[in-house]
């Protein structure tokens, strides 16, 4: 075991006491990670839509400006949607945080290297795009600081959290997309959501 952060401990820490935060997870390991921390009606784990997690978060953040929106995704997923960093920076959503769990691997397909294993700096890209707060995290103290910043909600935030490339048992959320959508909307918007 390396001395790197462990992804499920990071996610458990970030989601403990989450209150009414709205959580979107990119496909693959981040979806298993948030489910490992506890399946929740205000979780929207993606089963596909690679490259789209941050943008789902933006649409949600613009629709719900008083709620904190947290996107948890992987380095491979974020690399597929780099343009969205520019789109998000221009919109300046104060209530959106994007946390990339960066294990430098495509975990679901056999642990092949992503570009972050070869020097590509995602936090630097987010900063260059103009996202208000960007940070790189690789210690438990850094995770605690990240958590404070997420829930303070002062401007869009992007964090690249370096984590160990460990192989973990999958923890699957429901996979019926309509169920995930409807339970999320009912928990957020109330029973009338079904009649919108």
């Amino acid at each position: 075991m390396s001395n790197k952060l462990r992804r499920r401990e990071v996610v458990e820490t970030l989601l403990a006491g989450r209150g009414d935060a709205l959580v979107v997870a990119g496909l693959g390991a981040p979806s298993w990670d948030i489910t490992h921390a506890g399946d929740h009606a205000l979780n929207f784990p993606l089963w596909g839509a690679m490259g789209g997690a941050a943008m789902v978060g933006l649409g949600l953040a613009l629709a719900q400006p008083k709620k904190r929106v947290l996107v948890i995704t992987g380095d491979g997923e974020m690399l597929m949607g780099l343009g969205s960093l520019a789109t998000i920076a221009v919109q300046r959503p104060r209530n959106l945080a994007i946390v990339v769990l960066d294990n430098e691997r495509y975990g679901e397909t056999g642990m092949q290297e992503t570009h972050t294993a070869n020097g590509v700096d995602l936090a630097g890209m987010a900063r260059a795009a103009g996202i208000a707060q960007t940070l790189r995290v690789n210690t438990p103290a850094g995770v605690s600081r990240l958590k404070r910043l997420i829930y303070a909600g002062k401007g869009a935030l992007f964090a690249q959290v370096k984590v160990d490339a460990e192989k973990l048992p999958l923890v699957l959320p429901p996979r019926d997309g309509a169920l995930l959508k409807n339970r999320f909307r009912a928990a957020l918007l109330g029973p009338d959501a079904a009649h919108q």
Partner: protein
Amino acid sequence: MKKKKAESAWPDELHALLADAGVRQVAIVPDAGHARLIKLCEKDQTMRVVRLTSEQEGVALLAGAWLGGDKGVLLMQSSGVGNCINMLAMSIACQFPLLMLVTMRGDHGEFNPAQVPMGNATQAVLEAMGVLVKRADSVAELPEMASGALRLAFNTFRPVALLIGQRLLGAKDFRKLTKSVSE
């Protein structure tokens, strides 16, 4: 003169339709055919225009919008449809309502050969993904087609694309643009 006035009013009618339906998030990759509608949406205080770097961002954005209780619309040209294909799997799998207003290129009277393959494939690839596709080729039918597409998307929770034909929009005249630059 009267015909010209009627032609220039269709973006205003589409804007009024979107506003009346409570559309809040307007996701765009610009197209000349949508230029006036985009300006109208930008002036509308009840709408948030979100410029995208690629059309697939709009499919994801509007999924998030709906999760949060907002209606949206995606404005783009037909070349952008190709960029959306895999992301549309989410709209289908989760039954997200999605209204796409697609101005056609590679269509009636096109000048640019590079626009033709995607323009010609637009309807087929959308339908292959399970998107319902409607089409308007005249100004007279456009508002009613748009109204029907909007209701179909939001009443039945599915992606619906309305293709706005180049016969209606007019093809871009590249030869003219080599001689002068104007609006």
